Structure formats: structure tokens, C-alpha cells
């Protein structure tokens, strides 16, 4: 019997006091699509970084085709035949596809040769790409193809894909699955990191499930249900959300955007073009779209981080607020949660109390007689902690000391505690564990039921379909008309996310 392709035995990895991998075993056979399942923070990325030579295990060993190996660097891993596509791409925006591929080669090759090989691989694996295009012109899905081709250039025996579908439209996902099937047919193994259960059940024949750094199961996902996989991942039942989509309402309009256009702030950004929509009280409007299609710009314009060209382009409860800054809008009862937790929503090295002050100094009465009211700030932290089950050690730790899910609960809770009349939130559960995600989504639904207007910008279609009443799609800075979620199919949304249906509007504009 041939030995397994790669085997990790009793791997332990510590980061300071944190035990990220606790005696983890993993076994991937030749020609197998193997899922590595787990919530964020379960230790999936740590494990594969050790397989790719980016981290060194503290204990345990790695076997490659039956022989123990050490992987001091990614280069050594590539030499064995291990390739990896990261969640966050590392491409030079101003260089072409072929140039990016050539730069990553361990052995230099002339550019025309690389370009020819890229064209060949892209045809063979169903990864359409033109080698001469600059990367900044490419969609996120196309960029991922560049990364995959970059790995295939090395003729890998094992390809590691880290959450590959989190940035793709449903149609693009289908394309990726076809490519994976092709790789398997050639006898290559794929290690597929994901927390999307349906996907894993469809394309993987083995799954290793991690929870809190330990392997809790190694199983055939096709023999499991999504619910049983989720239970193993989370270690308990995940309650369903209490939510029924609201009917068409004639509640008063809280937020109204009229013909908002905004040029891009940097050369590779996206300009907003003629965005219009109405958001009523008691309603959740979802904005779907592939990353980089103007979501950041839309958030910045709605929050007031960037001002609209004319005041009347954004109306809050009928008042023109387009030229008001973020704090003026907060005083009118609006609240905002940006996508990036660390560095945007929160300052990593400041304590939570000061992070409460960050978004609350204008409207929460944290400043009295010119001095900060530290007691009140701490009280706010305590209240958020209680209401949103924020797990932390000390009473007032630095923001960076919290796990992703707990910090997200804090930055969402910090705003919800104000009972805002309007909430604009981007990626509310990005990279958050299932328990925290459910709690946050329920809080958003409850807020809307109490009469607030909620705008959710998300790339997670499942999330939007679960909580939104109406859905619009953003593509190249344009927003499609919002439609009730009830009558929508995933295919329709997918087509919109890929730009179909926007063509005529683009030509007219």
C-alpha cells in the first residue's frame, strides 16, 4: 500500500500562552480532496502554515510520502510539491498576470515562456485568464485564478486552498469546483479549508474537523448532514434564527440616497455611480456583491467618513446630511460598524473603554465638563459585555487581546447599546465563529423589529438571505434596485453579482 501523501502527527503549536494546535493529527492521501473544517480560531490556518513551511511546530512531526521532513521555509515546501493559495492574495497590482507568476517562480524563466505556460494551464484547468492583463483590472475571482496558476506552475502534488470561495460569486464557485475535480482526476491532492458545510459535503471525500486547536473528528462529510458537521465544529447545537421577512411596508423612510456619485479615493478604488435607494423603519436592506465593487466607498459615504458632493444626496429622516460629518450623523441617531475590526472599528492597542469612547464621544455623554468620564466609559464596556456575551480576561483589556468573534461582538454591541435609529454595518460576521455570528445576526434582526432601519453590506450571501428583507447588489460602484428577498433565487443574485443586468445601465451612464 502506498504511504499517505502527507501526514501530520501530534503537532503542537503555541503562541505565547495560546495553544493554537494541541496534538493535531492530519492525514491526506494521494488524489483526495480533504476538507479542513473549523470555526475561526480553531487552528486551521496555523496547521496549514506549518505544512507550507511558514511556521514551525513546537512538537510533533510531518511526514511526506512516509518520510519525516522538516519544512524550514515555503520554498522547501514548494520543492516537495506543496502549493498554497492564501485567503488574502499577494499580487502586484501594477504588474501583468504573467509578470506576477514569473516573480513567484523559484527558478527564473523568460517572460514569454511563462506567459505561454500560463495560457496553457488556464486552458487546461478551466481558469480563464489573459496573461498580459494588469492585475488591478482583474476581479477578485480572476485574481484567485492567478494565485492558483502560480501554484500549478510548480506542478504540486498537494494544493492547499484557504477559504477559496469566501470571495467568489456562486457561478465562480462552480468554476472552481470544476478545477478541483480536474486536479483530483490527475492524482493531485487538495487540502480545502472552509467553514461552509454544504460546499464541503459536495466536493470533499474526507474531512478533519478542528475545534479549539484539537481534532474532534476525521470523517466522510458526504455521510454527515450539514447540521451534524456544524455540531462537531461548534461543539453544540446552533439555534436557528428567529426571523420572518417583513412584508412590503409603508413605514416612513429613514434613510434615502438620491443619485449619489463619488469618485474613487485611490487609483485602484471604485467610484460610486448614481446610487439611489430608500431604507424604511423596521427594515433590513442587504447589499450583496463581490469584494472591491464599491462596498467600502458606500460605507464611507453613508457614515460621513467621506462627504457626499451635495447635502441632498443623503437624507436621514428627511434632513439633508450629505455634507455632515460622521459625528453629526451619530447625533441624529445613526450608528456605524465598519468591516475591519482592528484598525478601523477599534484601535488595537487602546483599552476597550477608550474604544467605546471612539465611536461614542459625540453622542453618549462620555465627556463632562471637558473631562473624560472614565466611570461611564467602563460602565458602557460592562453593559456591552453583559448584553453581547463578550468573553475577555480583565475588565478593560486592550482591543487586540480579544479574539475576532469577541471583538466583533463588542464593536457591534457598542453601537446597538445606543438603540440607533439607523445602523449601517459592513461584514457583520466576517471571520466570526458560528455562535457569535448567530448572536450578532439575531441582534440586527431584533433591532429592525424595534423600528430601526438597518443596512447590511456583506459578501456572505447566506447571511443576507437569512436576515435581509430586501436585497440589492453592488457591482462596479452601481447599486441594483432592491428587491424583496422572498422572490429571489441564488442564481439571479449570482448573475447580478457577476455584473449581468448592469451592462445597459453602464452604457447609459
Amino acid at each position, binding site marked *: 500500500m502506498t504511504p499517505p501523501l502527507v501526514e501530520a502527527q501530534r503537532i503542537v503549536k503555541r*503562541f*505565547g*500562552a495560546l495553544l493554537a494546535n494541541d496534538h493535531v493529527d492530519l492525514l491526506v492521501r494521494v488524489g483526495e480532496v480533504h476538507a479542513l473544517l473549523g470555526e475561526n480560531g480553531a487552528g486551521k490556518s496555523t496547521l496549514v502554515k506549518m505544512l507550507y513551511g511558514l511556521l*514551525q511546530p*513546537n512538537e510533533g512531526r510531518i511526514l511526506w510520502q512516509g518520510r519525516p521532513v*522538516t519544512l*524550514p521555509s515555503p520554498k522547501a515546501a514548494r520543492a516537495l510539491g506543496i502549493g498554497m493559495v492564501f485567503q488574502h492574495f499577494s499580487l502586484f497590482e501594477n504588474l501583468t498576470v504573467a509578470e506576477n507568476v514569473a516573480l513567484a517562480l523559484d527558478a527564473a524563466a523568460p517572460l514569454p515562456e511563462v506567459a505561454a505556460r500560463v495560457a496553457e494551464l488556464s486552458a487546461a484547468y478551466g481558469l480563464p485568464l489573459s496573461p498580459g492583463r494588469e492585475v488591478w483590472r482583474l476581479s477578485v475571482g480572476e485574481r484567485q485564478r492567478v494565485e492558483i496558476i502560480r501554484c500549478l506552475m510548480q506542478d504540486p502534488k498537494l494544493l492547499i486552498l484557504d477559504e477559496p470561495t469566501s470571495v467568489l460569486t456562486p457561478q465562480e464557485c462552480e468554476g472552481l469546483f470544476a478545477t478541483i475535480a480536474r486536479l483530483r482526476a490527475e492524482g493531485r491532492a487538495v487540502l480545502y479549508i472552509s467553514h461552509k458545510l454544504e460546499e464541503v459535503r459536495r466536493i470533499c471525500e474526507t474531512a478533519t474537523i478542528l475545534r479549539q486547536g484539537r481534532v474532534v473528528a476525521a470523517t466522510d462529510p458526504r455521510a454527515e448532514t450539514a447540521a451534524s458537521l456544524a455540531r462537531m465544529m461548534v461543539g453544540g447545537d446552533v439555534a436557528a434564527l428567529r426571523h420572518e421577512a417583513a412584508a412590503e411596508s409603508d413605514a416612513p423612510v429613514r434613510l434615502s440616497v438620491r443619485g449619489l456619485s463619488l469618485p474613487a479615493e485611490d487609483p485602484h478604488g471604485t467610484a460610486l455611480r448614481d446610487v439611489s435607494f430608500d431604507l424604511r423603519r423596521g427594515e433590513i436592506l442587504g447589499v450583496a456583491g463581490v469584494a472591491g465593487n464599491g462596498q467600502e466607498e458606500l460605507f464611507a459615504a453613508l*457614515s*460621513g*467618513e467621506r462627504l457626499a458632493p451635495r447635502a441632498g444626496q443623503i437624507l436621514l429622516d428627511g434632513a439633508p446630511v450629505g455634507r455632515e*460629518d*460622521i*459625528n453629526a450623523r*451619530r447625533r441624529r441617531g445613526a450608528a*456605524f460598524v*465598519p468591516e*475591519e475590526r482592528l*484598525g*478601523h*472599528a*477599534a*484601535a*488595537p*492597542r*487602546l483599552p476597550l473603554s*477608550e474604544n467605546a*469612547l*471612539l*465611536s461614542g*464621544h*459625540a453622542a453618549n455623554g462620555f*465627556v463632562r465638563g*471637558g*473631562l*473624560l468620564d472614565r466611570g461611564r466609559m467602563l460602565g458602557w464596556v460592562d453593559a456591552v459585555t453583559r448584553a453581547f456575551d463578550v468573553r475577555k480576561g480583565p475588565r478593560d*483589556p*486592550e482591543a*487586540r*487581546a480579544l479574539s475576532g468573534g469577541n471583538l466583533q461582538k463588542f464593536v457591534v454591541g457598542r453601537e446597538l447599546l445606543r438603540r440607533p435609529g439607523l445602523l449601517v454595518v459592513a461584514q457583520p460576521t466576517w471571520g466570526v465563529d458560528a455562535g457569535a455570528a448567530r448572536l450578532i445576526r439575531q441582534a440586527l434582526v431584533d433591532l429592525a423589529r424595534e423600528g430601526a432601519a438597518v443596512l447590511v453590506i456583506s459578501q456572505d450571501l447566506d447571511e443576507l438571505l437569512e436576515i435581509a428583507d430586501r436585497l440589492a447588489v453592488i457591482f462596479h460602484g452601481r447599486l441594483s434596485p432592491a428587491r424583496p428577498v422572498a422572490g429571489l433565487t441564488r442564481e439571479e443574485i449570482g448573475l447580478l453579482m457577476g455584473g449581468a443586468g448592469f451592462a445597459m445601465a453602464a452604457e447609459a451612464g
Partner: protein
Amino acid sequence: MRLVLERRAETPLALRIGSPLLAVALTLLSAIVIFAALGHDPWRALHIYFVMPLSDSWGLQEVAVKATPLVLIAVGLALCYRSNNWNIGAEGQFLVGALAGSWLALATHGAPDGPWLLPAMLACGALGGALFALIPALLKTRFGANEILTSLMLVYVAELLMDWLVRGPWRDPHGFNMPQTVIFEPEATIPLLMEGGRLNIGTPLMLLVVALMAVLAARTLKGFEIRLVGEAPRAARFAGFSETRLTWTVFALSGALAGLAGILEAAGTVRQLQPAISPGYGFTAIIVAFLGRLNPVGCLVAGVFLAITFIGGENAQILLRLPLDVTRVFQGLLLFYVLACDTLLLYRVRLVRGAAA
């Protein structure tokens, strides 16, 4: 076996205090080596440098006189650095402050008129320093010019301006052609705190400024804004703070404090303008700011320590015939060690055994 640096999740308080102390200890160690290499008894030299200045009333007063401008400048710089604005030109702002305040003293010379003069001179000094500091702020916010370079180069502008004025239009006609102005009238001179010393009301004024800045940094929204802009600029925008406005504010504030230090030095300690009015206070204050952990009270402690090296350096010059440059070397080494020790705040050093790599 090898050393690795691991990022810390939190920085213990003991280390925050311990790191500058370690830097001081390393500087003293280096000093011992340097004294020995220069052929002096290191213990005697250290005694002259660091103990003698504190052993009599005169020495203590001198330390306070030197510490006053250092601390005044450093607390302003600390605010700048906290917010990621690198004002390196405090020396120039100090000189322009001295010039602006002295202008009033010279304009009223011979006919001083009323008790308003001294406060007006101090205000002029602060205003002059602030306006001069706003030049790099303007260049940074309007044109994206690097404030480190512009503020530093403006020091030379200020020095040459001072040179020209005291050798030209402002020179004392009865001063035997020396490059200096007339001695200021008593009404235009900072009152002494006590007879028979050089301590003047500049020192209590400095202590008041330290207290105010400590409250500003720790207890007001402006202090939070300064920290937030330095820590996480994007989060600061989310908080609704304008980076541009803050750059103007901290440059103006640190310039004003440097200018105030300048006019206090001119009208108090020196009582006239002369090119050698500053032994590099504006540059030494950068060391004070970092040694003091960019904290106003820390700056006070660090300022006293650096003042001791100034007095000790003068003593050593007289008693050991050591060049004054040795003092500069110590101050430079100190800054170097302070910054190096800061690595310990962010990282944990671990010894890794075996062939893990």
C-alpha cells in the same frame, strides 16, 4: 540555539517603567568604558558627572534652570510624537520664540511701560514659536512634504536669522561689537524666585505646564484624539477626528511651548539675546520626550536627568578637561538605548533550543 522575538499580547506595567531605567543603566555602563578609554578614573568621572551637580544648592538650582526649557519643549514634542507628527525642529521654534519675545523687550527698551510687558513678551514668544512650527505643519498637510525634513531644515533658518539680527539691526551699540543685544530692562526680565541664585519663575511655570499637559493627555477628549490618531489613523477618522486639524494643533502647541521656553531663557536666564542662547535644548528635548515615554510626568523626570548631564558635562570640562562633546555622546547613546529597549515592550525575547528551525 537562537534568540527569537515574539510579539507580546500586552505590555506589563513594570516593563514600561523598567525599559527607560535599563536604557539609563546601559548608558552609564558605556560611560564607564568611554571614561576608561580616555584614561580617566571612571568612578571619579561618574561622580563628577552625576553626583556633584546634586550635592549643593547652586548645583541643584542649575539643574532646575537647565531642566526648565528641556521639559517645556519635551512635553510639547511628546504630544506631537504620540500623534505621529515628527517635529524635529523644536530648536528653531525655541530660537524664534526667543526672537519674538525679545523684539518686544527691545522695542520698549529705555521706556518700559507697566507690568503688562512681561506677560506680553511671553505671549509673543509662544506665538512666534507656534507660527514657526506651523510652517512644517502647512507643508505636510497641504503638499505632503515630510515634516521631519522641513522642521529640521527650518532650524538652520532660525539660527541664521538669530545670527543676522544680533550681529546686525539688534546689536548693542555699546557692546564692543559683540554679537549680542543690550541687557533687558528689569521690567522685561523674568523675576527670580530667590536672591542669590538663578532660579526664576520659569521653573514653577514649567511645573504648571506639565500638570496641565498631564491632564490634557490623560483626561480630555483632545488627549484621546492625539493617541488615537497616532495608534490607528483609520479608526481616528471613524471617530470623526480630522488628522489634518490635529497636525496643525500639535505643531502649534509644541511650537508655542518651545517658543515659551525660548523667551524664558532669553528674558530670564540670559537676559539678552546672543547666538549661543541654546546649548541644543531643542534637540536634547527629543531625547527627554522619548526617555519620558512620551508622558508629561515622565518628561519631567527625564528632563531633570538630562539637565544633570549638562551640568555634569560642564563640571567635567573644568575638572577633567573632557570636551563638551562627551556629553553629546552620552545623550546620543541614551536615545539609542531608549529606542532599543522599547523593543522589549513590544516583543518577548525567547531562547530557542534544538533544531526546531
